[in-house]
């Protein structure tokens, strides 16, 4: 009986059951594909999830950066930079890379004591607390699509490098 149903009828309409079966298969496969996309989205493959949250620490452990590994064009991302130095002494942090050129810094908290340019990079002077830790919160926004690089340096020995991929 099922076999009979797969035969194309000529009356009252012209059918093409092989094609129709292909369409039904496409719908079924497409549905599973959409489920996979939704699950990946929940996991953070398209930003703002466990898979996209990333952090990197410099070799000497002084510099720590939390960033988004994967994000989307046009959304705001937070970037948290923590530097350990000596108590009450200002620290210089240098930010460099295509991330700074392509993305605009929407907020910068707290305001650095000084902000200078150094070639293509920017140099920020941060005050430290009594335990010698300085934290800088940035929110970045970019319309760019693709991979953006960023390098953060604090002094000659502490440097981290990371990249962010922006989906369209």
């Amino acid at each position, binding site marked *: *009986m*099922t076999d009979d*149903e*797969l035969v194309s*009828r000529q009356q*009252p*309409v*012209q*059918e*093409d059951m092989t*094609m*129709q*079966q292909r*369409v*039904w298969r*496409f*719908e079924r496969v*497409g*549905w599973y*594909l*959409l489920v996979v996309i939704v699950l990946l989205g929940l996991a953070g493959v398209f930003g703002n999830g466990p898979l996209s949250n990333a952090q990197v620490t410099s070799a000497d452990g002084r510099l720590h950066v939390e960033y988004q590994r994967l994000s989307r064009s*046009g959304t705001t991302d937070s970037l948290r930079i923590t530097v350990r130095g000596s108590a009450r002494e200002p620290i210089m942090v240098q930010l460099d890379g295509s991330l700074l050129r392509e993305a605009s810094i929407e907020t910068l908290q707290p305001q650095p004591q000084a902000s200078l340019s150094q070639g293509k990079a920017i140099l920020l002077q941060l005050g430290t607390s009594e335990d010698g830790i300085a934290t800088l919160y940035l929110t970045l926004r970019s*319309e760019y699509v693709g991979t953006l690089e960023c390098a953060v340096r604090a002094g000659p020995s502490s440097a981290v490098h990371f990249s962010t991929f922006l989906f*369209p």
Partner: protein
Amino acid sequence: MDSIIRAAGMYIALMLLFRVAGRRSLADLTTFDFVLLLIIGEATQQALLGDDFSFTNAMLVIATLIVLDVGLSLAKLNSKPLARLLDGHATLVVEHGRFLHHRIHRARLTEDDILESARDSQGIEKVEQIKFAIVERNGKISIIPNE
């Protein structure tokens, strides 16, 4: 430039998504389907226009969508295989008073859906009174009664 690419990308993405959703999904609009359609429109609008709310950008996006839509319908006129591929075929689901269960299942319909259409359009009570029921290309169910 990017607004044109965005509009074209959105057109193709939506066409694929609605093809996956199938003919049935938005053909018979219930209140919920209508709300769903509005939400889809709202979600699309943000990505189409981005941050640019200028008149020029809106016109560019609309022009791109119309060019694609009319272009596609012209292409369908000229190529029958393409039209078949994009629009699909009508499918028979009731033949001489007998349900074609396998087809009904694959088309994500129920027998009640067909009987509802039969009552609605022809005032038919039983499946035996239906000569043919056809799922049309737009998802509507046409009923041809027995004489």
